[in-house]
């Protein structure tokens, strides 16, 4: 029995070692995630240099290296909101970082675009000096950034074992969604558009399509209406307010008329 247990433990340990993911040498993606409810952004993976480090692939770089870092920005907020996400560069955090980063070329672009948002020495703010909108994301929606670092082959020996820190700032605005008029794609989080058509019997059918990924709902007979409840509530509220005010005015007028009759 003891031997069996020992053998089983050995097999399990071996299986665990094989199953453990190999890290360190492999490229690693980074993430910027908004969880909603005015919580902070969550930056991963971080590093021993900075908890918010988005450059896991830019460590131990050597002259001649050209390295790429994929950063995924994601909206994990509630489905009742969509968010507009912006970013900008603050630049190198100190003089030593600036001296080192000034030797390296950095390129930042959206993965689905050709033109870069930023192409300059890594310590500069350049094209990211001002806020740049990364996109409008519904719940679950993402936008990918590709960051490329080019290290010149002529980099001087004095830049061995150097550390350069670069600060970026992210901000977002939450925008409420009117569910009756908007839908978002459950596949990619992009906004969907409504389509309608009538069959031979005059029955109106509607379905929703996502232009971003092509996902579409099945056509179904149109029921109910699309009118905005909020609009009619506001109008009704306004009418009630006016009615009440007119009533009050009329009463005051009647009272003052009565007082006028009572006076000799």
């Amino acid at each position: 029995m003891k031997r069996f247990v020992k053998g089983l433990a050995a097999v399990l340990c071996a299986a665990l070692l094989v199953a453990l993911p190999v890290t360190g040498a492999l490229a690693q993606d980074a993430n910027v995630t908004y969880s909603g409810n005015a919580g902070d952004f969550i930056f991963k993976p971080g590093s021993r240099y900075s908890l918010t480090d988005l450059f896991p692939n830019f460590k131990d770089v050597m002259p001649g290296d050209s390295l790429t870092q994929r950063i995924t920005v994601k909206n994990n907020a509630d489905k009742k909101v969509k968010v507009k996400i912006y970013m900008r560069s603050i630049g190198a955090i100190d003089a030593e970082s600036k001296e080192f980063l000034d030797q390296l070329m950095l390129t930042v672009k959206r993965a689905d675009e050709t033109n870069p948002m930023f192409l300059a020495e890594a310590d500069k703010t350049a094209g990211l000096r001002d806020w740049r909108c990364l996109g409008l994301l519904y719940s679950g929606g993402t936008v990918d950034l590709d960051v490329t670092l080019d290290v010149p082959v002529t980099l001087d020996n004095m830049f061995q074992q150097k550390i350069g820190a670069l600060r970026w700032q992210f901000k977002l605005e939450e925008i409420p969604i009117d569910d009756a008029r908007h839908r978002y794609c459950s596949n990619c989080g992009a906004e969907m558009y409504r389509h309608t058509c009538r069959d031979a019997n005059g029955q109106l059918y509607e379905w929703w399509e996502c232009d971003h990924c092509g996902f579409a709902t099945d056509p179904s007979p149109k029921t109910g209406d699309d009118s905005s409840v909020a609009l009619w509530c506001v109008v009704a509220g306004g009418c009630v307010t006016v009615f009440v005010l007119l009533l009050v005015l009329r009463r005051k007028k009647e009272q003052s008329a009565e007082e006028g009759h009572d006076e000799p």
Partner: protein
Amino acid sequence: MRKATKSKLLLCAVAIAVSVVTLLGQNTLAFYSVSSFATNVVTSGDIQLSIIEKMGDQDFPAGGVYIMPGSVVGKKVMVENIGNHPFWLRVKLTNGIDDETLSPDMFELDVNTEDWLAAEDGFYYFKRPVVPGETTPRLFSQVRITGEMDNSYLGKTLQLTVTAHAVQSEHNDAATPTDVVGWPSESQVAE
């Protein structure tokens, strides 16, 4: 127009205006605005080597060894890559007594020509890049003092100085190690 009618009209206008403003304002007000900073770090690597000098199984004496003409001094020289990046390697030997550098003709080395290439510039080049964690095969394992040394050297201490140069091999391919670019100058030495 009578005053009462004017007031009623004004009230209606205000009520409608408030309704419209509220209606339009719905879709432009954001719930929350959030901002955070990310500090992203780039680090550079380097190349590091360690020269290993052995006399048998012991470290070679730092002060050198006493010699006689015809002596054979057992000295094994190897180089270890103690960094994270591979490098090309070359080694130079300087033999001296006190402050006097001796002619190479006074010594015979059993150079390992299988792994090392003797060049005209006096360096021995390791024939391939040394990967991280690797220790090279010996450059030589003994030094024989030839008869060129006269009696004036009796009782003197011989120093065999090993100088090693390394240059990164990543993005630095070459057909032969002597064609590699970026060797440090003589003043940038590792002893």
